């Protein structure tokens, strides 16, 4: 595995799982991504990312009760793990750090 670096989509999905607690599963994450971020993804892509994040240990999952709208099938509900939380924090922190390092003068959009 390529370290614990989060890809952009992975980070988004991870955030969504947190946002949707405790009802984060494939279709819900997909819908939320479209509603909140405007990213229209195929369910299989979302599913693949979720599985990958679980393999990296950033998510854990359990099966829900059977539901009618799925033809009596269960959902796989995803939850953040401690390392998932750490990964999000690190990503956030790194971003903020870098953001604050941008010199004021850069905001004037001028070439020197």
């Amino acid at each position, binding site marked *: 595995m390529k370290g614990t670096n989060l890809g952009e989509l992975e980070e988004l999905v991870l955030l969504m799982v947190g946002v949707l607690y405790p009802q984060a599963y494939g279709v819900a994450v997909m819908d939320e991504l479209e509603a909140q971020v405007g990213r229209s993804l195929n*369910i299989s892509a979302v599913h693949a990312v979720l599985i990958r994040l679980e393999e990296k240990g950033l998510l854990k999952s359990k099966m829900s009760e059977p539901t009618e709208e799925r033809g009596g099938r269960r959902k796989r509900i995803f939850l953040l793990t401690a390392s998932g939380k750490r990964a999000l924090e690190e990503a956030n922190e790194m971003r903020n750090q870098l953001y604050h390092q941008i010199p004021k003068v850069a905001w004037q959009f001028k070439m020197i």
Partner: protein
Amino acid sequence: MKWLKPPQWPNRFLQWYCHPDLLEEIQGDAFELFYRTAKKNKWKANLQFVWNVIRFFRWKNIRKIKSTQTHQLSIAMLKNVFLVAFRNFFRQPAHSLLNVIGLSVAFACAFLILLWVSFEFSFDKFHSSNNRLYSIVSHVEADGMVQSYPLASASINTSSVPEVEKAVSISTGSRWPHILCFKPESINSECVYLEGVYTNQNLFSVFSFEIVEGDPHPLNRPDHLVISQKMAKLLFKDGQAIGKTLKVDSREEMMVVSIMKDIPSNSSLQFDFAMPFAFLQKEWGINEQQLSGQFFNTYIKTTVPVSAEVLSAKLNDERVLTKELKEQNVRYQALPLKDWRLKNHFEGGQQLSGRMEYVVLFTIVGSLLVLIAVINFINMTTARATTRAKEIGVRKVTGAFRSSIVLQFVGESFLIVLVSVLLAALITQLTLPLFNSLLGEQINLSLVSGFLPFILLAFLLIISVLAGLYPAFVLSSFQPARVLKNQLSARMTGSHRLRQSLLVVQLSVAIGIIIFSGVLYRQLSFIIEKNLGFDRSNMIRVEPTAKLFNNFGVFKNELFKDPAIQSVAASNTNPLQAVGGNTDVEWPGKPKDQRIVFKTIGCSYEFAETFGLKILEGRNFQPRPLDSLNNEVLISEEAAKVMNLKQPVGQVIRMGSSPCVIIGVIPDFHTESLHALRLPVILHRVNYMHTSAIYVKYRPGTTQSSLAAVSKAYKTIEPDYTMKYWFQDDTFNEIYKTEIIASRLVLVFTLVTLVISGLGIAGLATYNVLRRRKEIGIRRVFGASVSQVMYTLTHEFSGILLVAMLIAAPFAWYGAERWLTGFAYRIDMPWWIFVVTLLGIGSAILLIILIQGFKTVNVNPSKTLRNE
């Protein structure tokens, strides 16, 4: 919501491929999305569902084949499988041998066809730049008819086409001056006739003909020549030829400057020597300008591979195709040289498939043969399955998985197929020389050359899986409890329906091949036996020399000293293969717009007599010197008819600019192969010097002595030469070479088909009768007569035979009809062949069953029934 369901097949696909651990959530997601969309639009929902299923088809989601707990293939197990296979092979030697023979004969045929097909495809591919070589074809339109020649003007100038790297004109032919007399170094030797080409220096830079010794860029001096290694060995005792002079045609001295490697047999261009055009000019007595007016085979090498269409378009540009040629309605076409061999047949300016048709035909025949053999194998193996039932039962009881039993039987069939393939390879290599002589080709490939071993390996694997899989599944499906309790049922030997269908397929293929080859054979013998209208047998064609013509009277006198010689004539066209036509004929009362193609043959006065053409009206040519003021012609009946002359004799017609008087009418005769329509003929007298061959007719049965007499007469006039001659019959065979070869091959493959399907049917019928021994016994006990028992044994086969006939007949009819349309003169579809085939195969099957049946029927029923 309940009544809406996602489409079943993608759902099933999903269930099939999806990893079981992931199936529930994935299916759930897909269903949820489907229901959600279905509320709005059912079609969209369906599409979305399918799309999602496809998108979920990812490596991670796919079900992985897990190896089972125990090892399937331990060494000991493998050893046991092979041991059992060997024991089984030898326990029923007749059965195994039948299988192996059937398979290997079919495989050998398929391999021979494979060799031949790859040989045909290998033509001209040995040139290192084979994808940049093109041959030029000229299409000449005249009177609405397009004739195509593999030639282009000798003065073709391709310098305006940027893609052309080099072009080369090559003059080829099968007569003088392309076949010349060379004398080996030893004294007093006879001529060796060798075939060569005239060309320029570009020959060896356009093509990859390898020069092994001497000047690598030869042919730049008028007295230089290049010879092949074979020719060097033939003419020089020690094979040392470089720098030596050769007397060409016993007159001209040429110096050997280079020796090239012998040209491989898969080259369309074949020659033993190459000389500069200067020599041809000298022989023909023409100057540079006249030479540039000639047409020769022309090849182009381009700098980069270009499409033939693009190149053709550029060749028809004004800078290449000169105005004069354009006015003569000439059109050039470039063809990739690598396709030349298989697709060099033109009709009406259109490229036809030519040899390719035969390649396809025999590929189909080969595949069908293999199919028949494999079906045999499957039928025989499943039919005998019961003999292995106990073994399978015991294996299963001691814990064999079904998969390992499948593996065992696939392995067994692999062994048999392997043995057959090896045997077939051996047969192939042994019969290759025979096959070569049958084809009249020199296939210089073997099964271990090039990529063929890989094809063979793939063939081996595919066939053994094909042949082994079904029997393996049937055999491995046995339930041990029932098998071991001896409750065998007919159902245990696989689907009866399936075996019947296989038999139908097999029989239809056999019937189809037999009918098709029957038609093919009838048509070919029709052609060969068809009366062409003139005599072609017992005739020698002699290549003339100038001296021979000058002393024609002496030559004739010498010939007639032998009473076996009947007559001698000369003509400028061989009536067997008179190509081209003449439309420049005028006659009284000819309508203005009418254009009719005649064959005009220039000949000596003895022509009609020599070729057995009777004079129906008027008189023959008279044996007196040619009178240039009074041209006389003989016309065929058809010519008289198209000219609409009631009294043809005495009428004056014009040929070109010269008026001719019709002195007689001769019967119609064919002047080309029977692929083409017969044309009206006009015979006119020409000087001996303007003829191209001398025809000597001799009494039947005196071939040897007549040939000796002709040869002797020749020697008296041309002591320095050896006579070059052909038999007209051989030339005739040459014209139909492809057809004759095809018919021979078809005959061979028909025999093989018969043998293989015969083996299969015999095996199956034997087995069927043996299986029903008890049934027959019971029937006999209850008073069935022998014929009634025979009826129950045979009626199943007769149904199968009829169905097979119904399937095969339309295909055979269609194929044969399509092949026959290629001939202008053809037989009607011989329906009796269909009937005879049906009856023949039917009675053969009947015979096999009856022989087996009688053995069983005549056994006392108490014997067969006691044996419980």
